[in-house]
């Protein structure tokens, strides 16, 4: 196994560990005779996947859609507010405590209000995903801007650069690693947000499907929903990590150089 390249290793080892994990699960279910309505074995879950494939795919797409729209909004507004906060100390001082306050409200508590305003459906899910994933982006972009080396700024200021030029030439490129780092956190949180909303107030989506399956004692389907969420989450995380690597390789030199 010494001849594996770095990228092959990244596929090879996780696969091995995952197979071991599922084997262990399967064997435990078999040996301890765990009833399927308590903890279904991986094979039961696979069966559920094939039996309910249509429902799973349909609801996965729904969850993905609400998550992605909410996440997209979080990126746009997160960047805007983050840059605004990083732009001026006064805005930072005024806005930051409010943001912290909003962020400390559990998002599940907001869902009933959203339902009150927008009714049951996509909108509360999108907004919950947005609300939950928005904060890490703001904080990271603002931190990136706040920690710019003053010397870097001086180089441009000595040439007569204005604030806008300093922001576009130094501020934004310099805070990109922070921004992309936050996207990895934000996308997983966005899934949390939309699924929370779906379990409370929706007619579709994985969260809703799991809730329905649970009340019908279709426990393998509940677990199939979890697996579907995990797959979507890993997929989106991997895409974010890839984008991060492409745009901010210069900030990840320790791995890059080896």
């Amino acid at each position, binding site marked *: 196994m010494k001849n594996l390249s770095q990228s092959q290793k990244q596929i090879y080892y996780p696969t091995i560990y995952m197979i071991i994990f599922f084997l262990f699960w399967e064997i435990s279910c078999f040996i301890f005779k765990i009833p399927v309505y308590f903890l279904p074995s991986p094979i039961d879950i696979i069966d559920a996947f094939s039996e309910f494939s249509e429902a799973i795919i349909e609801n996965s797409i729904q969850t993905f859609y609400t998550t992605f729209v909410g996440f997209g909004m979080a990126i746009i507004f997160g960047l805007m507010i983050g840059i605004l906060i990083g732009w001026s100390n006064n805005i930072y001082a005024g806005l930051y405590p409010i943001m912290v306050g909003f962020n400390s409200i559990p998002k599940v508590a907001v869902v009933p209000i959203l339902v009150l305003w927008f009714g049951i459906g996509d909108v509360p899910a999108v907004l919950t995903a947005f609300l939950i994933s928005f904060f890490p982006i703001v904080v990271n972009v603002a931190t990136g801007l706040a920690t710019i*080396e003053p*010397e*870097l700024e*001086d*180089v*441009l*200021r*000595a*040439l*007569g*650069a204005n604030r806008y*030029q300093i922001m576009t*030439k*130094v501020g934004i*490129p*310099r805070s*990109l690693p922070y921004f992309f780092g936050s996207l990895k956190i934000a996308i997983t949180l966005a899934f949390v947000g939309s699924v929370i909303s779906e379990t409370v107030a929706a007619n579709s989506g994985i969260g809703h499907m799991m809730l329905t399956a649970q009340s019908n004692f279709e426990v393998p389907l509940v677990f199939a929903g979890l697996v579907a969420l995990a797959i979507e989450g890993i997929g989106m995380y991997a895409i974010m990590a890839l984008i991060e690597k492409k745009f*901010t390789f*210069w*900030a990840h*030199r320790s791995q890059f150089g080896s």
Partner: protein
Amino acid sequence: MTNEFIEINDVSVNYEINNLLAVSGLDMKIKSGSFSAVVGPSGCGKSTLMKILSGLIKPTTGNVKINNFEVTGPQNFVGMAFQNPVMMPWRKTLENVLIPFEILKQNKSKKENIEEAIKLLKIVGLGDFIDSYPWQLSGGMQQRASLCRALVHKPKLLVLDEPFAALDAFTREELWCVLRDLWIDHKFTTLLVTHDLREAAFLADKIFVMSARPGKITNVHNVNFKHKRDLKITYSEKFVKLTQNLRKEISNNRS
């Protein structure tokens, strides 16, 4: 009208944040095309002096005139290099050197600018590294690139804040010669702030000695070694004597 390029008249700078009087009663006159060095004990306000000249900070009292015009903000004819190379890690070396052109509006084409930058990078020995990222270069190479960035827009005034302080002795002397050759070819007025007395004596025509904080000029030495100087002169008796005198003055200024 005077023929002085830079005139610093009775300047003091008081930093509001910690109410620190950095320089006080500072007077300096520098001729166009000359090479001046400023030496002094640490914390004597040398960097403050640099920032006043480049327009990054305004003097609390007094005024600074360059070319008979009072400095009120950053000037487009100033080039600066610092102790750290301050390269932008997301840009290749060439792109880093091109930054001044992106800020200053000039009537030249992009192609001309790139040619100018490459020419300069070749002179300092970085011709093979224009497409490397700064973090792939050694400290000395980054400082060469930083020098190129300070000079690429052909500034009339080059301000250097201990540019070679972080380098090893051999690289430092190599870069002295690089700077010497560039200066002899282009004759931009240069102000070098440094801790290194040999560096000051080797490069400059005029050495200003500063007192401890609040800094002001206590003495001015004219350095009369012929240009272009060879590193050998740093071992001559006259040279050693000059640096010893400087050292004595600075240690007197400290106490």
